[in-house]
């Protein structure tokens, strides 16, 4: 093969580079870097301002200013959300670790949410109802469940998209919470 035939190799080289790139992306999906998980721009930003009525009559409103001083997990959930059922039993572990657990009931009927909590138990310290999902948009919510770990200064430090598994809690949430509460 003469040296003058080099242009013939250019398409092959480009093809191989593309194969390498796609293979890399495919492998990364297995490592949790899936393209449908949109990286949050809210990380390291203060919790958006909100005032939400409590899910329970007679309980105080849930206000963003009060989410300060203690490490808090804000968990966006709904009774109509199937994966929320998956993560629900593990929320107790977060409570046990001394993390304040605030729920945002996203685009749900309050009576449905209350019934859901009667069935499955209520691990939340407070729950605000975001009936029209407007506060959810301020958080950058695009699907439920989503959880936000907030440090003592009221800054979002971590976002979980999708249900929290035991592994997520033990390997990510709890170590980060311990570090943040120092």
């Amino acid at each position: 093969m003469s040296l003058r035939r080099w242009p013939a190799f250019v398409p092959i080289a480009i093809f191989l580079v593309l194969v390498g790139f796609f293979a890399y992306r495919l492998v990364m999906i297995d490592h949790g870097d899936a393209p449908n998980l949109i990286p949050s721009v809210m990380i390291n930003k203060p919790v958006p301002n909100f005032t939400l009525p409590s899910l329970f009559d007679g309980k105080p409103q849930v206000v963003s200013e009060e989410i300060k001083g203690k490490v808090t997990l804000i968990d966006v959930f709904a009774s109509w959300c199937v994966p929320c059922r998956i993560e629900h039993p593990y929320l107790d572990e977060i409570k046990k670790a001394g993390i304040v657990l605030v729920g945002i009931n996203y685009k749900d009927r309050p009576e449905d949410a209350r019934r859901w909590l009667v069935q499955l138990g209520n691990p939340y310290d407070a729950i605000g109802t975001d009936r029209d999902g407007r506060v959810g948009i301020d958080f950058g919510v695009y699907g439920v469940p989503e959880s936000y770990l907030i440090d003592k200064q009221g800054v979002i430090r971590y976002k979980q998209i999708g249900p929290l598994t035991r592994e997520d809690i033990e390997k990510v949430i709890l170590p980060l919470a311990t570090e943040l509460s120092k």
Partner: protein
Amino acid sequence: MKSRLAFLLILLLMPNAARAVQPNEMLADPQMELRAREISKDLRCLVCQNQSIDDSDAELAHDLRVLVRQRLQAGDSDAQVEEFLVARYGDYVLLTPPFKSSTVALWMGPPFFLMIGGLCAWVVYRRREDKATSSDKKLTPQERERLDAMMPVHLPTEQTEGKNAP
């Protein structure tokens, strides 16, 4: 006949005009509604991820369409509405990514590869030209003789070339 054709044309174009926008979402001010539609076409539906919120029937897309209209009514400019959503969802919410250092490969990639392709095509073409114009195009006198001997009738090829004509 003409009016019927026009009606048919309108019917055919209608689904394209209507999209996912519900009548109750639309603004009373047609000018502002038009702006909202234009903005919505460039905002990604975060649920479906490859449709604009103007196209998508997802509930979040509906919420965002309403939000865009609320922001416009509150007096936001088109750019401010986009900024508002980028602040919450990141650049990903824009269907046309902005040109910045992290998107250089995205924007410059296609013209770059087109240039490489063009360069290759040019080189290959040039070489072919070189070959075509080089010595092997014309027959040597010996070859001419052999060919003439083979041909039952002498064809006036030389004359068409206009060089060795008698």
